Structures are given as structure tokens and as C-alpha cells.
């Protein structure tokens, strides 16, 4: 092998690249690490200055996140000793647990709305993309442009009309309303992304399946879908990230029953003073589902395994 070639970078170059990548990773991962660490700090450690790199880990933030607490008299505290580890943490601050907080509910709402709208966006998007890719649809190009054009302004620009519409039809603060809204916003992305993927799947596969005795829908299900897995997985991740993280509409359109976690987490500040560990704990737990989802689908993101059995 020659000392340097186009395909093989030199040793020095590789080192520089590695250092740059390591530096970039550090910069992007740092805030995340900070959040995760803060979740395990005590209230005092979380606001210590200079910030503490090493600290005594505590689950106080998590206990605060999941419970509501009240202050009680010394006599009451003495009469009701803590029964388990989390009551003990609360006790040590001179408080008792009054009940569960609303975080669990909000987290469940986020899960229902996030995954529900992702499922719908991908389902409808796949079918629409398949139709646009394979059939002669009248005014196809105009329709595709129209679908894309819904993405040309920031969705929040129409927040007020949507707010009024939702109130008029009774969709305000409902799971169905939020799922519908996020699906509508994500649909243009999912149709366009998936159309690109399906366009790349040669028609011959479906034609072979049609001849092998399958109906159009069976061919779609058995032959096209498995090969569109890469596209479906990446589209699902994008849709979930949007629906999961969405804040503005959630603040505007939900308050009680259907409130998701993003508008809830900041309210922790108001409820129990500036409880940074509790907020950080909420943010940490909030990060997990998208992370797990992405890791689960990672396998499908590897392209190339499904291409190449048609002679080009």
C-alpha cells in the first residue's frame, strides 16, 4: 500500500480527525451529563459554587419528582416514623409525603400522544407514499407540493386558529386532539421521506409477488414493507422526536387531562421552590424513551442489507 492515497487517509490525519470528533462529542454530551448528574445531587450540591464534579449521590430529586410533600409538626413526625427509604429521605428534610405527584400521569400522556401520533403518521405516511410512488394519481405533483407546503411555515404560526378550532370542536386538552395535531404536522415529513425510500424499491419485487399469486395489498405487506424498514424506522424516529419534544402547542392546548411532560417539568419550579434536582430527574427520565426507541430501531437504520437482488 502506498504511503498516502485517496482512499486511505494518513495516520496523522486520522489522529486529527479522532481528536476533533472526541472534542465535538464532549461538547454535545456535556450538557446531557450535567442534567443526569444534577438529578442525583442533593439540593445544596445542585446550587453549590463552584459546581461540584464529585458529590454524594442522592435520590432526593427523584423522590421529589414523583411525590408531593407537606411540612408537619415535630410531634406528628415523631409519631409516624418513616417506613421505607424514600419516606426517610423526605423525613430528613422535616417533611412527609402527602401523595404522588402528577409527573407519572404527564409522562403517560407524553407516551400515549407521542407514540400514538408517531404510529399514525408512519402508517398513513407509508400508505400515501406507496400510492404516490406506484400509482397514477391525478395531479400527483401538485398534491405532493401541497403536502410539502404545509411544512413551509412554523406550525406555531397557526397556533391561535388551531386553539380556536380545538375549542370549538371540543378537542382542547384531549389525547385525541394532540395525537391528531402532531400527526398532521408530521405527515408531510413522513410522506416525503417514505416516498423517497419506496421509490428506490424496484417495482419488480411487487410484480414478482403479484405473479406468485398475491394481491396488491399482500405484495405491499410482504415484500415492500420489509424493504422499506429502513425508511420506516428513520421516519418513526423523526416523528417521535418531534411529538415527544413539542412544547408550544402542548402549553397552549393542554392543561389538565392531556398535558404532556414538556409543559409539566418547568412547573416543578413553581411547586416546590427551585428544585433543580427534581427538574433534572424529570428531564433525565423524559430523555429515556426516545433513546430506547432509537436504540431499538438502530438495527433497521443500517442500509444496504436489503438492496441488490435485482440486476441493474
Amino acid at each position, binding site marked *: 500500500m502506498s504511503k498516502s492515497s485517496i482512499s486511505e487517509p494518513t495516520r496523522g490525519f486520522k489522529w486529527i480527525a479522532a481528536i476533533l470528533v472526541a472534542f465535538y462529542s464532549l461538547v454535545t454530551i456535556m450538557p446531557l451529563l450535567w442534567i443526569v448528574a444534577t438529578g442525583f445531587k442533593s439540593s445544596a450540591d445542585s446550587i453549590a459554587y463552584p459546581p461540584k464534579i464529585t458529590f454524594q449521590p442522592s435520590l432526593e430529586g427523584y423522590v421529589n419528582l414523583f411525590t408531593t410533600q407537606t411540612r408537619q409538626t415535630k410531634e406528628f413526625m415523631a409519631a409516624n416514623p418513616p417506613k421505607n427509604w424514600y419516606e426517610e429521605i423526605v423525613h430528613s428534610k422535616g417533611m412527609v409525603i402527602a401523595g404522588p405527584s402528577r409527573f407519572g400521569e404527564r409522562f403517560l400522556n407524553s407516551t400515549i400522544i407521542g407514540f400514538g401520533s408517531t404510529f399514525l403518521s408512519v402508517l398513513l405516511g407509508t400508505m400515501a407514499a406507496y400510492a404516490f410512488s406506484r400509482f397514477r394519481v391525478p395531479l400527483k405533483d401538485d398534491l405532493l407540493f401541497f403536502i410539502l407546503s404545509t411544512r413551509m411555515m412554523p406550525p406555531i404560526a397557526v397556533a391561535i386558529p388551531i386553539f380556536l378550532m380545538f375549542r370549538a370542536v371540543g378537542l382542547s386538552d384531549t389525547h385525541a386532539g394532540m395525537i391528531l395535531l402532531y400527526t398532521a404536522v408530521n405527515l408531510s415529513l413522513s410522506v416525503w421521506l417514505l416516498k423517497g425510500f419506496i421509490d428506490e424499491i424496484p417495482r419488480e419485487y411487487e410484480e414478482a409477488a403479484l405473479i406468485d399469486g398475491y394481491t*396488491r395489498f399482500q405484495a405491499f405487506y410482504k415484500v415492500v414493507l420489509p424493504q422499506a424498514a429502513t425508511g420506516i424506522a428513520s421516519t418513526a424516529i423523526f416523528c417521535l422526536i418531534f411529538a415527544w419534544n413539542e412544547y408550544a402547542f402542548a402549553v397552549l392546548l393542554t392543561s389538565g387531562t392531556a398535558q404532556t411532560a414538556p409543559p409539566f417539568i418547568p412547573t416543578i419550579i413553581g411547586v416546590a421552590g427551585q428544585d433543580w434536582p427534581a427538574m433534572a430527574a424529570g428531564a433525565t427520565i423524559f430523555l429515556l424513551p426516545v433513546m430506547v426507541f432509537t436504540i431499538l430501531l438502530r438495527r433497521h437504520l443500517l442500509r444496504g*442489507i436489503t438492496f441488490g437482488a435485482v440486476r*441493474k
Partner: protein
Amino acid sequence: MADVVLQGIEKKFGSVLAISNLNLEIKDGAFVILLGPTGAGKTTTLRLIAGLERPDSGDIKINGHSVVKNTPAQRNVAMVFQQYSLYPHMSVQDNLAFPLRSPTLNFSEAEIKSKVNEIAEVLQIKDKLNNRATALSGGEMQRVSIGRALVRNPSIYLMDEPLSSLDAKLRADLRLELKRIHAQVGSTLLYVTHDQTEAMTMATQVGVLDKGQLVQFGTPREIYEKPSSLYVASRLGLPRINSLPADLFSGAPRGAIKMGLRPEHILQGKGKLASVIRIEHLGDQTRLHLSLEGFNIVTLTDSETKLAVGDKIKIQPNNALYFDANGNRIE
């Protein structure tokens, strides 16, 4: 097993006429081969019969019933695609079993397994059954795609150049195998190829297409010996038929403009003097490229010829074919 009839088929793609007024009758148990250059409409004909395309006009009958409104599944045809079209997300085994698992059939897994094994044996891909379809060589893919057609019992097999990317030995083996299957099962086959050996050895009838029209239909020998036109004559024969002015040699009938002279229809030793410009030794035969009055002529000679480039030999036609101004053959 069935007979297939195409009546007055016409098919346009946009403004391009792919098939025009095509009439073709494929008898039950026939092995019909379609010949023609790229764009002549061979593949379109197969796709029309399969139901992947709908004719703009005309009728297609399988076993006497019109099928133009039927889906491909209802027509019960099997097709080998030129591009293999193996399902990339499945193993070879599942690819071969896929047609048998279709909702229209009802085979038990044990039956499917035995059928798949049988076909894999015939096509010599038994050791590849557990491979992914994408982890095969081109020749292996092509065999799997043939196997996927052979594994069931359709009314007609449609094959689009199925042997084109196989090596010579495998091609010869599979040619025999297809012939054997055809003879044994008595199935009807419509087959597209460019290969003369395939056309001459396998076909019961050959159809020659030109610009979407069927220009001649007959047994391989008829097509070879009595081509209706110079176009048909040039479709079969290797080396290709020599196309020369009719008056290059004496004896042309009236109205003849062109003479078609097959390489084996040239007598050496008498006639006009031609010079040797190239010699190709093929082992079993030798091709002589000659120049006669400015025209290039290819003929055959025995493999141990002493001729060399620059030598002069006398040649004379024997059994020449003559064609009129429109390219049609004069009897």
C-alpha cells in the same frame, strides 16, 4: 397447462407504440420462443400475458377464457424476470417457497419443503438454500428465479432471457433441464432470448417480432430456412447472414434487390475471386472474413485450413435467399 391466444393486441406507453396488432396462438404444451432486437416488444408481450400490463385494445385468452380483466394471481402464470427480482429480505429457501405459500394455494409446510428441495436439486443450489438472496452470485440468483417459477404448476411459464447470465456449461445444463421439464410436464412455455442455440434446440415454434409486430411465426427450421424477410433471416444464424446486392452473382430472380447468403451456403473453389481479410479459429470451425468487390462476406471453412490473410479464393453462392425492395423474400 393451457393454450394462450393473443388477438389484435395493441399497447402504447405514452406516445410510443410498444405492440401493434399482435396476434399469437400458443398451443397447449408448446415451447414458443420470441426473437427480436431490444425494443421489439418481447418483454411487453410477456408482461401483457402475465397481467402486469393491460392492453389498450385486443383480447388475451388463456384456455379459451378472456383474462384481460384478471389480476396476475387469477391468471395463474409463472414468470422469470430478466432482472431476477428475488426478494432480498428472504432466504433462498423462502424465495422458492414464496409462490407455494400464496393464499391461492394451500400446501402444507412439509409439501412445500419437499417441492423446494426437489427444485433446488435440479438447479444445483441445494447448498445455498439458507443463504440470503442477496448473498448469491448472478448465476445463482438467476437459477433461484427460474426455480421460483418451476416450483409450482402454472398454466403457462413466461421466461425473459432466463439463461442470459449463466456460464456456458450451466447454460447448456439448464437448457437440457428446461427441455426435460417441458417434455415431462408438458407445460406451455413462452420464452424470450437472443441466443440462437436456445431458439433452435428448445423451441417448438419461434415468433419473430419487429417494432411490436409479429413478422413471422413457425418452427425454428422454417424460420431459419424460409425466412419471410431479410430482417427475420438476420435474427437467426451465427455468424449472421451476409446481406449482399442481388446482382453480385448471377442467377438472381426478377425483382430481387438483396441476396441473403448464410455462411454455410457459400461454395469454395469456383466462382468469383475474393481475398481473405481475417481468419478466426474457433476450434471446431474456422470463420473466414472475405472481401469481394468491396463487400465483406463471412463464411466457414474446416478447422485445419491452410489459408492465410491475403490469400485469394473463389466463392460461389449455394442456396442463396433473395429479397425484394421491401425486404420480403422472393420464392
